[in-house]
């Protein structure tokens, strides 16, 4: 195992709690629309002219809207392992926020272990390593 420090692959997009990580989104103070990635400038609800937002932790679980996998190495800026290891992808619908968020699925789970409507939970896992750090990102963990 590497002794490098663990860092967020994208700073400020999720909390780094090992057990119960959350995506960090925003919620419009006036109309209650959620945002991920967080928006702190102008509300995108066409009926709302608010510029005030609260930073919020988004729900950690949702229902799988759909899922797939990546059998071929994506182009840069993706940093692939050598040799490339395929991974699954899920789009998960958050009930309270009424939005769908994409992400990789945890290592070791492929499409044959998923179904539309299944519950999935947010976890952190390595996206890639560079010379100085292990870069982690959010991934979806389907529940049995």
């Amino acid at each position, binding site marked *: 195992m590497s002794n490098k420090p663990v860092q967020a692959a994208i700073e400020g997009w999720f909390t780094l709690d090992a057990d119960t990580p959350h995506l960090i989104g925003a919620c419009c103070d006036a109309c*209650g629309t*959620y945002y991920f*990635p967080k928006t702190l400038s102008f509300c995108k609800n066409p009926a709302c002219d608010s510029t005030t937002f609260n930073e919020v932790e988004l729900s950690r679980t949702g229902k799988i809207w759909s899922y*797939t996998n990546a059998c*071929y190495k*994506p182009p840069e800026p993706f940093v692939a392992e050598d040799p490339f290891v395929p991974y699954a992808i899920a789009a998960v619908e958050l009930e309270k926020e009424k939005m*769908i*968020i994409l992400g990789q699925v945890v290592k070791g789970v492929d499409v044959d272990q998923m179904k539309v409507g299944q519950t999935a939970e947010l976890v952190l896992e390595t996206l890639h390593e560079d010379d100085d750090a292990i870069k982690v990102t959010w991934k979806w963990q389907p529940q049995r």
Partner: protein
Amino acid sequence: MSQDIAVLGVGMHPWGKWGRNFSEYGVYAAREALKDAGIPWQDVQFVSGAATMRCGYPGYVAGATIAQALGWQGAQVNTSYAACASGSQALAAARAKILAGECEVALVVGADTTPKGFLAPAKGYRPEDPDWLRFYLGITNPSYFALYARRRMDLYGDTEEDFGLVKIKNSENGFTNPNARYKKKFTMEEILNSAMVADPLRLLQICATSDGGAAMIVSSMEYAKRIGKANAVKVAAVSTVTPTFASAVVEMPDIATDSAAAAGVEAHSFRAALPKKAYEQAGIGPEDVSLAEVYDLSSALELDWYEDLMLCPRGEAAQLVREGTTKLGGRLPVNTSGGLACFGEAVPAQAIAQVCELTWQLRGQAGERQIANAKVGITANQGLFGHGSSVILKK
């Protein structure tokens, strides 16, 4: 007042992969369209180009680049960029100018030269750019197509074979099309044995990128009458609507949808909104449609379009392809050109190429691909960042 404009001429440079300057394909297609229209280049008053982002600065000003290559003659010029809908926006600009009385006859043209492999984002560390971000997280274009395909399988019971039937149909349609790049009739075995790219989509079910060029000469109905072409095929509608908040289907390049949590906000499907606006504009309904050209970025996506075009109820599209309704000789042929399956995508030219095919079909000039009694045709496509289009042609 009639909102129709006339399609006097159409032309294409065949699709392929040669890496030549994009304007060569554009000029070739424009000259074909002029020849088809029977008017001299000097009579064109407005050049409406669709931009390409992968050919340097001349591509950003494609209208002017192609006008210069055809020989400067003082026409007004415009260039539109709207990802896959660029060609339709160029057509919309020409239509608006004609209907406003600012010009009588216009050239609409798009051409592209594409790099090999996955389309990749601009370089650097740029997490604020959703297109950069999704590639960093490992989410490519086929990932989105596959999410839509898998949802059809889990919700409606579509199968890999259903998606294979779409590919077989399109490969048979494009087989005799002189402008198609891929002319090979595929079997189910070949399709289902091709490499898995993004489960459930395999290599032979995902659209490639191509070089190509397409052009149209359009005019006011008055002008068409004056040159003896009062019976020309007409553009009855060009829809380029943006999504309506909250856009509830994950679309390239975003990693999240809008949130529909606010009071009074409903979830909307972007794809369904495009043809709806076109039908409204044309005063024509889905029951009047003779044929459609839709964006089969994947074989499975063609089935989504059947439903978004309201050619069948939601969830029942696979039945149309199983019964042969949408093949040549069926009640409602779709992608008679062979679609993206046989062309591969030449982004700024593709939406125009769809309209070229409808024109040939409505005129009865589609050769071995010709369908019977074509009266109304509709196109549909979608691109990045909420761009999409739907065009209706009628006799």
